[in-house]
Every structure is written in C-alpha cells, then in structure tokens.
C-alpha cells in the first residue's frame, strides 16, 4: 500500500488542483512546440515535481510513467568510482546529483552527455529532444553549476533540462538566465483544506473541517506534510474527532525540547547537553540547515521583540557559515552559544531594571 501522497498524486496538467492558470501556461508552452530549459522552484511540498511529471506527460504521453530505476556508474578523473541512482523512462531521466557530494560535476557532465548524444528514436511522432530532470539543484557545488551552464548550451538540440530546487538564491545567475523560471508557490491554507477533504472523500473517510484547518495550519503550506499528517491522524484515531492531536515527527519534538532546554538555562554545562542532542539529530540524518532553522523558529517564540533582530542576525551569520564550512556542529553550537549569551544578558538586564 502506498502513502496517500503517492496514491493521489495528479498525473496530468488538467487534473492539478491549484495554480490552475499556471498549469494552463505550461500546457501552452508544451503545445507551442519549442520548449526552453525550465527552472522550477518553490518551497518544499508545493508540488514542484508533480508539476514536472505532469508536464512530461503532456510532452510524451503516458510513456513517461513507465519508470525504471537504474544504477549509473561514473569514474572521476582521479579514478574514483561513483554510483548514482537515476529514475528514467524512454523519454526522460531524473537524477539527484547532490547524492554524490562534491563529485557532482562529473555526474552532471557525463550523464547529460550520455543522454544528449543519443537522438530520440522516432522523432516524427515524438518531440526531438529528451528531458533531464535534475533535483536539488540548489545543493549542487559551484563547479557543477558552472559545468552545467556549458553543457546546457552545447546539447540544446537534443536535450532539455528541468531543474528543480527550493530556492533560486543558491543557483548561479548564469543558470537562472538560461532557464525559464517557474515558481510553484505553496498552496494556501484553504487550498490545503480542500485537498485534504478531497483525498478523504476518495478514501471514504469523513474529515471534520476543524481538524482539516488545524492540519493545514500546522503543515505551513507543505501539502505533502499535510497529507502525511492527515494519514497519521487517521491511524491514530478514526473516526476523526475535531480536537484530536495532530502528530508530528519525532525529530521535531526532539528539536523543540532542545530549544526549550536552551531557553531554560544558559550555562556551559547545558551547552554540552544541547550538543549531545544536536549530535543525535545529525546522526539521524536531519540536515544541519533544517536543525538551524527549526531551532531559530522555536527560540524566536521565546524572545522579546527587541532581541529578535539580534538573534535572527546571528542565526543568519552562522547559517551562512554552515553552508560554506565543513563541520556543521561548530556553527550550530556557536549559534547556540551566541543565543545563550544574548539571552542571558537580556535576562540579567531585565532583573536589573526590576530593582
């Protein structure tokens, strides 16, 4: 049994539930014959990949749904063997180059070359290009992005790229200018509620609108998460009650506890405890930037208005270092220490003012 997220994923542009005018644009784009490189961006869970898959289907018909998983092997110039998993149909190939870390440049160049060198078999009935879908483009290294720029131009005749990322800020301008940007905004709360209702109806369930609203609020515009939450709620308790708990993943709870530990006490000893928990989060594969973001969100709720700017500024400072540095723990810990210092000073001043 698959998750609802997979089960009720729309497969054609016509079936998309929100951003319908955008869907219409995409349809026109495909029908227009020529098709530029696309850069699809938007927050997580907004439906970027769903849209990409719908577009591909519009391009090639139902053939793109016959997917197969392939292991591609590459050798770097330094003779290191790389293996990357790609998902492909006869018409497209989807790959996440950031899987191979800093060697992503090789993967990008080789993979696109391999795809682009072979023409479409039957170009009379099909489009005369293939599509390469690259996900998590914002996690690509600089080298790889520059390599991509050249490759894009070179194989324009036989191959189109669809780049998917969360934010364009980490994509170099040269690539941004070569692509048609398609922003997929997060669905509004109302749209999410509507979606949840539709899915529940198809499942034969009765979802109280209060619960749907609460789930939508909690999901923060992430439709995937909303559906997952809804499914978890169903497992937890059915029939639904309007005031039941909306369960969250364990790591979020854990992270929230960690944040409250920081607020409770500011001492070196506490910092060590926090560090232990940070290590635990990291070893459970929670990305460092997600931890940083989560911590900031929780900490800000405990902050006075005047502190917020300072805290956010230091968070931005260390988040930037996190991106360019190597060992995430240094930077997260430095942020925690900084927050502790700021917060302690604030408390002490507050007490001083009191007397």
């Amino acid at each position, binding site marked *: *049994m698959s*998750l609802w*997220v997979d089960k009720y994923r729309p497969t054609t542009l016509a079936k998309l539930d929100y951003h319908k005018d955008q869907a219409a644009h995409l349809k026109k784009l495909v029908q227009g014959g020529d098709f530029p490189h696309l850069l699809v961006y938007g927050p*997580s*869970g907004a439906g970027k990949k769903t849209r990409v898959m719908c577009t591909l289907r519009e391009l090639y018909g139902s053939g793109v749904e016959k997917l197969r*998983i392939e292991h591609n092997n590459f050798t770097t110039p330094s003779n*290191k063997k*790389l*293996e*990357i*998993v790609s*998902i492909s149909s006869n018409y497209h190939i989807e790959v996440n180059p950031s*899987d*191979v*870390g*800093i*060697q992503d440049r090789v993967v990008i160049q080789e993979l696109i070359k391999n795809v682009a060198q072979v023409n479409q078999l039957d170009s009379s009935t099909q489009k005369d290009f293939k599509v390469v879908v690259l996900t*998590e483009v914002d996690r690509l290294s600089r080298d790889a992005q520059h390599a991509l720029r050249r490759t894009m131009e070179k194989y324009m005749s036989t191959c189109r790229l669809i780049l998917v990322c969360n934010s364009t800020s980490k994509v170099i301008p040269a690539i941004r200018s070569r692509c048609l940007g398609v922003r997929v905004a997060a669905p509004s709360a109302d749209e999410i509620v509507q979606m949840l209702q539709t899915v529940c109806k198809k499942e034969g369930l009765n979802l109280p609108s209060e619960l749907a609203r609460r789930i939508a609020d909690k999901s923060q515009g*992430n439709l*995937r998460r909303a559906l*997952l*939450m809804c*499914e*978890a709620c169903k*497992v937890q308790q059915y029939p639904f009650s309007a005031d039941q708990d909306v*369960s969250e*993943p*364990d790591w979020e709870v854990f992270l929230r*506890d960690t944040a409250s*530990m920081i607020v409770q006490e500011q*001492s*070196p000893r506490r*910092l*060590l*405890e926090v560090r*232990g928990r940070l290590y*635990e989060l*990291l*070893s*459970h*594969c*929670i*990305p460092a930037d*997600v931890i940083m973001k989560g911590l900031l969100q929780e900490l800000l709720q405990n902050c006075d208005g005047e502190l917020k700017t300072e805290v956010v500024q230091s968070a931005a400072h*260390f988040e930037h*270092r996190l991106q*360019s*540095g*190597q*060992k995430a*723990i*240094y930077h997260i*810990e*430095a942020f*925690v*220490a*900084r927050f*502790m*210092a700021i917060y*302690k000073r604030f408390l002490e001043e507050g007490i001083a003012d009191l007397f």
Partner: protein
Amino acid sequence: MTFSPFPVFRIDLQAKPHEEIGLTMDDSDDDVSIVKVTQAKSQRKGASWVTPSFDDFDFEPSLPSSKSSKGFSQSHSQYSQPKSQPKKTLQTKLSTFASRDDFFNAPSSSASLSRKRQREQQQVPAHKLTSVVKSEAQRRKLKTALSTDLWSDQYQPKKKEDLAVHKKKVEDIWSWLKERTARFTKHAAPILLLTGPPGTGKTATLKILASELRLEIQEWSNPATAAGDSDFKAMEQADWSERSSVDVYSSQSQSSQFSNFLLRANKYQALQLDLTASSTNSSQGKFILVEDIPNSFYRNPEELHNILKKYRRCGHCPLVLVVSDTSTNSSNAQRLFPPDVQVDLRLESINVNPVAPTMMVKVLNKIASQEAAQGRFAAPSARVVESIAMSSAGDVRSAINALQFACRQDTVDLNQLRTIQKRLKKESSGSGRRLKYGSLAKQDSGASNSTQHEVVIGAKDTTCFLFHALGKILYFKRGDPAESGGHQKLPAHLSRHDRDPLLFTPEEIVEKTHLSGEYFNTFLHQNYVDFLSSVEDVERAAEYLSDADLLSAQYTSRGQLQDYTVSVATRGFIHSDSSICRHTDSRKGHGWRPLHKSQWFATQKQSQQSKAAAMRLFRGYHWVPETLLTEIVPYINLTNPTLHDPGQISFVQNVCQFSRSSYALRPGLEKLDEKSAVDDEDDTDEIPTASMNPAFNASQSLARKDNAGDNDDNNDDLPSSQTQIKTAPVEEEEEFFIEEFDD
C-alpha cells in the same frame, strides 16, 4: 654418519657412465650450454677430477652456480688444472653447510654436531681479528683500541643498581617476574606487556633481572628472510631432480612461525649451546621474551590475540611482550592491544617512563668519567652533558650515543655546542632551575630570538601524544610579563583583551602531535566547554572554532590554511577564557577532567550510513534524501510501519527513535586515553555514497529484528561483530598442535 641434515646423495662417478652426469647437470640450473661443454670435457677428464678420496663423502651436487659456472665456463687452459677446482668448491660448500647449522636445531641433532658448532663459534671472532685471542680481557682491550664500539653497547648496565630506570618500575617488574615464575596457575599463563618510549631500558631491565633471578630467557627474533629457510628446505628434499623446482618455497607465514615458536618455547628447554655456561647456570625457571612482534600482526592484531589467548590457556611460563611507543601519532601498544583485549587476555602492563633528566645526567657523567679515566677523551663539561641529557627526551641509548659523538676529538669544537653552553649559562643564572625536558622550548617562546640555537647533537625530535597536547592547551599557563621583556600592554580602550604572555606556543604543541590541524580542532571542540566557566567565554570560543572551520573550508586553499586554523582555534580558546588573564590567576574548581574523543566522525559516519540505507530501502519512493528522512520516514513510523518489509520497518524504527529522557547527559562519549591510538581520518566531506554496503543493510535488518522491542538503545546496536571466544573447540585444536610436536 649417525645423522645428516643434508640429503644423502652419493655419486659414484667411477661406476656411472658420463652421460648421467650430463643429465644431472642439465637438470640443475640454467647453465645448459655450459653443461654441454662439461660433457665433452668430462669424457676426457671426468674420471680424473673426482678422486676416490671423496667417495664416502655425502656429496651434494648443487654447486653454487656462480662459482661452478665460473669454473666451467672458463677456457680450456683452466681445465688443465681441474683437480684443484672442484675440491675448492666442495670445501666452500661444506663451510656454508657448517654455518647453516644454526638453522638446524631439531632436538635429535647429535652431540658431535653440536660440539663441532661450538668449536666453530669460538673461532669466528678469531677469524675476525685475524689473530687468535684467547682471554676475554685481551679481546676487549683490542676492541676498545679500535674504538668503533658504541658506548651504549659497551656500557650496558650489569647490575640492578646501574639501571637508569626508575627504582619503582624495576621493583614492579622484579616482583612480577618473581611471583609469576614461582607461583603458577594452570590455564592462566601470565602475560606482561612492557611499554615505553625506545631507549628507556626496558630490555636491559628484563635481562638484568632475569640474570639476578636466575631465570632463563627465551627470546623470539623475527626470521631474517624466508630465502635462507627455503634454501635449506630445498636441500632437504632428497630427490635431486626436484632441485630445479626450488622456487616452490615451502616457508611458513610469519604468524604461524611465531605461534610455533611460542608452543615450542613453552614445551622444550633451550638447547644448551654454551657448555661452560650451562654447568654454572642452574636456572630456576624461564620466561619467554617477545620484542620483535612480527609485522603481520600490526596488520591484523586479531591473529596475535588469538595466539595469545591460546598461549594463555596452555602456556607454562610467563610471557613478556616488549613494545616501544615509537610511532608518531599512535601508540603501537594501543594498536596491538586495545583496552578491551588487554582485559580479555588479562594482560598486565607496566609502562616504563622516559628516563628522568637527573638520572640521565648521572648515567652520562659516569660513562664520561670512565672514558676520561682511560685517558682517551677529555671529559666533556657538565653543561654539555646536561644539554645532551635534556635534548634526548629520556632516551638513554641516544643520549649515550650523542655523548660519544660529542666526545670525539674532531667534533668537540663544533659551533653548536658552544652556543648551547652560552645559552645554558644564561639560563642557569635564573633562579633554582629544575631539570625538565620542556624547559628549552619554554625559554624559546619567551625570548623568541634565540630559537635558532635549538639544535643539539643527537637531539631527538620529541613527539607528543594527542592527550598531552590537548591537556597542554586546555590547562594553559601564562607567564609573568615582567620576565619576558618584549611584552607590551594594550591601550586602555582594549584593556579587556589584555592577557599575559603564554608559556608555550600552541602551534608547536599541535605540530608535535603529527595530526592535521582540523583533526586536532575537532578534539579541542569536543572538550573545550568543560574548561570555561561562563557562557560569554563559551560564546567567544565557539565563534573562534567556527572561524577556524571556515578558514579551511575552501578545498583549494586548505593546504595552506590548515596551520592557521589551529592557531585561530587554540589561541581563540585560550584568549576567550577570561578567568585566566594573568599569570597569577588560578583555576577555580578545575580538577582533572576526563577528555573525550570527538563525536563528529562517528556521527558523520552514522548519518551517511543511514542515509545510504534509506535510499536503498525506499528506492521505490524516489524522494530526495532530505524529504525522505525528514518527512516521509518519520510519518511512515507514525502511520503504519507494518505494511512495509521488515528491513524498512526496522530501519524506520531505528531512525525515528530519539533518546526519551530530555536531560540525558551526553550519550556515547568515548574517553580519550593517555595513549589512545587515533587515526587521522581523511577528508570526511567526500561523502562515500558509492559505498552503500549491502552487508550493512543485511546485518542491520537482522540485528534490528532481534531487538525490535528494545526501544531505548538506538545508536549502539551495530551488528555484533565482536568475536565470541568459544573455549572448547580452540582447546581441542590446541592439544592437537602439541601432539604434532611430540614426535
């Protein structure tokens, strides 16, 4: 002939036709063309060069090819006197055989043979000196006159009192040897691990104590080469025609030789080679000494552990392992015997410290005065001796060698020594100076202009274990600014950053650990928080560490910036400790604190493994890893995990399990021991995604299945790769081994 180690191969040339000689020669080595000549020649003179006098000699026809071929391939004129040629080769052959007797120590060797060997052994030095020297004293005199001997050999300690090792350590070893040889429990052969830096007198102590306790030492020495062995074995093969297949070496592996040695030494007495000694020395026991641990054990220590386990069960006498802490960044002893193995084998370990400077000076002075008394060298000044002692870092052997070098007529006037004397004079003018190895370096950091005089003859490159280096940084000391002249106060508006000068240079200390800067930083990062008392200090130190990490982030410039990262991190940490700004400040409430190993690498490794496992298990879902691990997998855990296959279920449970107790104190910390072996890990940011090891997954899902109900322990249930010691079967095998040696 009662017994012969050599294949009995008799050639009765007179009885055999010449063709057969040709044939045998043909079979031998590559001298086919030569053989033909021989054949032709031997038809004429064959009978004449083998005289009947050789008849009853065991003739081994494998003439060394260099000699024989020379003999044969010469022109005809050489063949005009062939009578002397073969005789000579035969004789040389015999002498090589005689010298090979050493290899042959099977118990069945006859008395006559061993006597013969003794005679030879006595003759060897006589040959060397070209004149027959009879008395021991005379010979020594001759030797010293040549004065090529190292003093370190010449002045080997003879008595317990002469040892430079600390009294207490000597006592320890003494009592151990005494107790263990006297009292002996079955199936628990005592094993002692003697560690310490090289040249601190470990072996010397053992040898002296053994002679004082009248114990016999059986020492393992690594077989020099396999070649000598196999040659000998080849000769044992009686069939001459197989001589050509010498290349099939039937030598044993080092490790099996070692285990055989242990079993044999355990079972049999050493051969009494020295008749005079054996009559006087009625030994009261023996122990086995292993100093050269075969190299192959460094590659897989498990093998050694197994052998020792075996030995512990069936050994009859104490075993002493001597391991020097030579290596730069990791201790050999730790690598060969990790703590858990030490407990497992019930190894007792005694660590010999570097020789104390005062003791070293005493030893050096004694030798110098003895040499001076013999009037060959002028005794070096006390300062020179002192400086040699201090630069030796506790290595007696190298100190004595350095002394010998310094005493030579042609080196005394070396410039360096004079500068050292000058410096030491300056130094000793300071108040009550204690001898300490670090003191030279300390002085340098104070007055940095005199650093270039550091080189002393035979100075040792001192290394520092990570533990000590870390300790030096974390428990840093400041000096009095008045003493080191060049220290300037900061202006008033910066006065809060003003600190007294340090008594050491952090960069030097880190350099001595031979670890990369980044790697050192991870350890500093793991431990620094404990040493700071206020959050503000921690904040500053944390930011410095973050800076340091940023410096080395760029792949291209990492090589150059590595050194700076250490500076930033260590000096940043030291600076940010605002409680110790002055040299008079003392640490409050800081007792000794345990240091810990960095968790970062373990964390990194685990997250990579789970990521790889996740991508593999949930391949069909094709999510990007981040979404998969932060959203999909946690919710699968919440919804209905039972609908997936067991591997997925166990993985999901594992990944989503966090320690429940919100105040759990740092779980899974590994303590950093004094001599912990640390391997400098390679760049960890090269994420080895290619190594999605299926073994990990398989074992993981298996292991997880077992403790599916076990919720609390999430991190540590790696596949139980620890070898379970099964006693019974090994013991059986053991008995079998001994049987084999009995016959």
